[in-house]
């Protein structure tokens, strides 16, 4: 579904990504692991054209999207749940969710998408008129994911959804992702530092170090791989 072929990305003159390649197949959950500063977020920004790659190819459903401006990504069926959530703090939860359906005009479709999100995260329904900035961390993450679901994405990219959240909440969020994968056939590209948890629910994974992919393979194999265990699972 998503193919990234040897992209190189820069911030100013400093090269961050070196020939990064990865693939996400339809219906998969693929995890991108790596310690802080490895270049995971930079990879996502390159894919989404927020900080375009200088070279390399990016294909979605076999179409080149290197030059597709980021505001067209919702039309492609790609939604991003960014690192740090990026909610609109002064807007209500409902308005934040509605922003997720910004490009759509069909009112009834928008309303049913909203109900679906409320079904998955009932908490958001209770808080729908509260300002997003006043939610707890877990609720904010739910809101960010909910906003990403408003377009019924084919591919959802999540950048560190578990960051700073209590384990109970993290489990809840991962359960929701699993449900979306099996029930709605959503494909996920997941970025995590919580390797154990991410690998347990993924099909495949990549490990990134200093802007390059250093290991790739099946998630269960990685869980038992000595290298990964030592570096990322703290075993």
């Amino acid at each position: 579904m998503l193919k990234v072929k040897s992209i190189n990305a820069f911030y100013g003159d400093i090269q961050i990504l070196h020939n990064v390649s990865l693939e996400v197949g339809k219906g998969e959950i693929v995890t991108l692991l790596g310690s802080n500063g490895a270049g995971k977020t930079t990879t996502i920004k390159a894919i989404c054209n927020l900080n375009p790659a200088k070279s390399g190819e990016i294909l979605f459903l076999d179409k080149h999207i290197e030059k597709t401006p980021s505001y067209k990504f919702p039309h492609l069926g790609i939604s991003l749940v960014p690192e740090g959530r990026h909610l609109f703090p002064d807007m209500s939860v409902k308005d934040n969710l509605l922003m997720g359906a910004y490009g759509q005009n069909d009112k009834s479709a928008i309303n049913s998408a909203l109900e679906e999100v409320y079904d998955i995260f009932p908490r958001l329904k209770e808080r729908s008129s509260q300002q997003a900035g006043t939610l707890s961390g877990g609720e904010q993450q739910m809101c960010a994911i909910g906003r990403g679901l408003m377009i019924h994405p084919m591919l959802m990219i999540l950048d560190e959804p578990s960051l700073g959240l209590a384990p109970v909440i993290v489990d809840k969020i991962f359960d929701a992702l699993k449900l979306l994968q099996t029930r709605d056939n959503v494909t996920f590209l997941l970025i995590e530092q919580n390797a154990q948890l991410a690998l347990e629910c993924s099909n495949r994974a990549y490990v990134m170090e200093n802007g390059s992919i250093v290991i790739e393979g099946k998630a269960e194999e990685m869980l038992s791989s000595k290298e990964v265990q030592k570096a990322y699972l703290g075993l």
Partner: protein
Amino acid sequence: MSVSYLTNQILNGIVLGFSYALVGAGLSLLWGTLKMINLAHGDLYMMGAYFAWLAIRVGKIPIIPGIIIGVICAAALCLFIQISTVRPLVRQGDFGMSPYILTMGLSILLQNTALLVYGERYQNIPYYLDKVYKFFNGSVTISGQRLLIIVVSLVVILFLMIIIKRTKLGRAIRATAQDREFASMLGVNTKSVYTVTYVISGSLAAIAGIMLAPIYSVNPWMGTAVQTKGLACCVLGGLGSVEGAIVGGLIIGIAESLSVTFLSKEWKDVVAYLILIVMLWVKPSGIFGKRGAV
């Protein structure tokens, strides 16, 4: 001093206040979304007045279509300025000092263009509504032109609020203001949002210029005082808040008018800026200010 005299002075203050509000609302909107101060904002006010003068006095076009043509020409000018100068700046991302230098240059350019093209003679436009209205058995009188300024400002401000709070464009503007990078990932074409915001902002100034042109004469420097006053109103209300600019505009307008009544004409700017200084002392973020978002 009679009550009716005082009422009339307050009314004059409200008229003045609404013109500041229009100018300030545009400045605040621009700050809220693009995070830039337009130092040529007052000159767009001036250009609006000249466009109306050209249409009505030179072109002999009837008043209402003349005003509309003036607004359209000003909007077109803003569009041209945005695409040719502001957009390349936005592309760079982090602006630093460049908006100030750019818009200061634009201001000089616009003033001198006006001077070259229209000359330095002050020009006049007839009152759009040349009547006097009396209320409360004649104890309150207001010229049609001033009444028109209040009505037009109210309608324009209402329209602006509806756009910002209730429409899809407004949601796009607010989203871009709060989180430019991410708004684009939700499908907002932030580049167009910036363009539209700049055009709306400049047109608000032009509308103010067009409405006030019959009262003050039209000249190349008419925007300078309005620029500083408009900015003062924004800061008083909370930079970035459109409501704040409107409230700030009314406060300063009325205060100026009252200081003319109770002190003398020379005191009006002193009082206006004194209010601003006290506000900055007490609450530096302004009346409505918090995060500087629309």
